């Protein structure tokens, strides 16, 4: 496809444990276009974080393996690169923002130095050039008085400011792809909003492609162009943000959407998805979601559904989309949600006037 910067094909990741081999990612196909934000959502254990680790070449060896699949980035298969070759890409072409800014920064190193590290290593800048660039980067991510701040340590920054530093480090070498793994989960709502705005701003300026991992559907609606919903190591639904929020097809996506309260559904029960995700040492036969699916059919227990095409941009892996399947409607609360909440949510927009 035109403008595709990353193409993941049939990616599989396994981990050897005493209990057996965990099939964490079980055949993943997606592509990332230049300048777009692809959100990957799913619950813990769905394989979203493992996927990003595979892209970064950070799967711990020897327990972790990529037995099959390709990660094509600018014509090269990242899954086949050696550690040394990968080091040249990591932090330079593809970089990452981690969830917890407390643990992803080195507490004993001044933050200026932490930003300069990558610049000196990858871009071969001199000390003084790297320092100038570090100050520019801190300015870019909205840290006041960057000249004095570069000589401070992480503990002297608040949580939101630390995450800005982490973003500055990730952006240092103008990466083509930025992977953000729950970058705002540890932050407060107001700070989260600032960081999301900052990321969108920077993306506009630099035309970076972003893979955004999160389980917060509100955040997804805010940042994403396209959304991939993962379950048990597979993509079960993928489409534009409008496809997935306004025309969801997979019962798991329905469950996710229904489990968030809407503004007016106080009296109703939330639609909880019953049960827990399957054991990926022995993935179930057929559709992995079948046992938690209230729309389950016989075939779900026998055969795995392929990705059915809904439209050119929208695919979902559920037998419900097969032509022989009965017509089913999503739960009422989800249909309500699909209509959008804009209409009954005016108060939030009113400006404060005193």
């Amino acid at each position, binding site marked *: 496809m035109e403008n595709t910067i990353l193409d993941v094909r049939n990616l599989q990741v396994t981990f050897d444990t005493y209990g057996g081999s965990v099939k964490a990612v079980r055949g993943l196909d997606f592509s990332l276009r230049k300048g777009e934000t692809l959100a990957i959502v799913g619950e813990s254990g769905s394989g979203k974080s493992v996927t990003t680790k595979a892209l970064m070449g950070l799967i711990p060896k020897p327990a972790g393996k990529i037995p099959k699949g390709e990660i094509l980035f600018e014509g090269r298969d990242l899954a086949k690169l050696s550690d040394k070759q990968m080091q040249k890409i990591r932090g330079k072409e593809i970089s990452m923002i981690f969830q917890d800014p407390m643990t992803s920064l080195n507490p004993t190193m001044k933050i200026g130095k932490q930003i300069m590290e990558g610049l000196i290593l990858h871009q071969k800048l001199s000390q003084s050039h790297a320092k100038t660039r570090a100050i520019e980067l801190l300015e870019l991510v909205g840290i006041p008085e960057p000249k004095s701040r570069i000589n401070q340590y992480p503990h002297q920054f608040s949580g939101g400011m630390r995450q800005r530093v982490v973003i500055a480090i990730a952006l240092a070498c103008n990466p083509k792809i930025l992977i953000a793994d729950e970058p705002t989960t540890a932050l407060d709502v107001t700070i989260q909003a600032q960081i999301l705005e900052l990321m969108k701003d920077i993306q506009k300026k630099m035309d970076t492609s972003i893979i955004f991992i999160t389980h917060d559907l509100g955040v997804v609606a805010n940042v994403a162009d396209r959304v991939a919903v993962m379950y048990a190591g597979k993509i079960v639904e993928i489409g534009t943000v409008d496809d997935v929020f306004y025309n969801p097809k997979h019962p798991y996506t329905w469950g996710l959407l229904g489990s968030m309260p809407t503004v007016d559904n106080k009296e109703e029960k939330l639609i909880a998805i019953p049960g827990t995700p399957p054991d990926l040492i022995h993935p179930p036969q057929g559709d992995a979601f079948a046992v938690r699916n209230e729309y389950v059919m016989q075939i779900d227990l026998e055969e795995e559904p392929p990705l059915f095409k809904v439209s050119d941009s929208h695919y979902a892996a559920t037998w419900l989309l097969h032509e022989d399947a009965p017509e089913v409607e999503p739960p009422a609360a989800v249909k309500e949600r699909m209509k959008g909440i804009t209409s009954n949510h005016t*108060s939030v927009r009113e400006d404060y006037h005193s």
Partner: protein
Amino acid sequence: MSKDKILEVKELKQYFHTKKEVIKAVDGISFDIYRGETFGLVGGESGCGKSTTGRTIIRLYDATSGEVKFNGIDVHDKKSKKNLKQFNRQMQMIFQDPYASLNPRMTVREIIAEGIDIHGLIKNEKEKTERVQQLLETVGLNKEHASRYPHEFSGGQRQRIGIARALAVDPEFIIADEPISALDVSIQAQVVNLMKELQEKHGLTYLFIAHDLSMVKYISDRIAVMYFGKIVELADSDELYNNPLHPYTKSLLSAIPLPDPDFERDRTRTIYDPSKHDSVNAEFREVTPGHWVFCTEGEFKNFKLAKAKA
């Protein structure tokens, strides 16, 4: 709802002294919680004092000043061993992190039965086993789980164990400090549904502390918004959501991402600038019945006027 007060908090202050400064984590807050309701306490920033408030109410901290009355009795008064025990039984807590709040070396049975033993609620082993099994079933686990250790459970299941532990001593009032923040969305809904069910069945009263306003609105009857140690606004949850008055509440509401792409595309965020208004002369004032705002006399008049027009 009956207006029987189970908890009264008056001018509560909780200061922490460090070498350099005094941190005013809770700075003179007052509110009542009625029996059978869910009272939501939210704040946007960490460090706004919402967790400290919960911990002071349950006597984990000694209050700097002010008063907390539970069933009419001062919580922070000196108590005889017997009275303290009774207090501890009536008020229980559910913690945020289901990984840190369960002892990894105790079985689920030991964890749940600990309170039962301390309070001597059941003496005979057979009945205790039955009670533990019954509690596990109440929270949606099964009796085989009793002999397992916390590491064998997922986050949502652990939170259920924490809830079973809190319920074991038949409390009247439960403080839930961010009970769902560490859980996945689908599991959050399970735990919230469970809490609502238990409330109906056992007539519990909750203080629900959280930063996720949409979930708080869903579960709470009334909500108080905290900002740097102070409650800036308190109202029925629908009223607070539909007619926020304090600029901080507005900014907080405008920052919550909602799962609707169209709405998100033209979201305008209101930024709160505390320097824009006078917080020194501000007081907690009741604008309409039950809707309290921390404001100055002038702001109060404006709010009243705006309300009268609406």
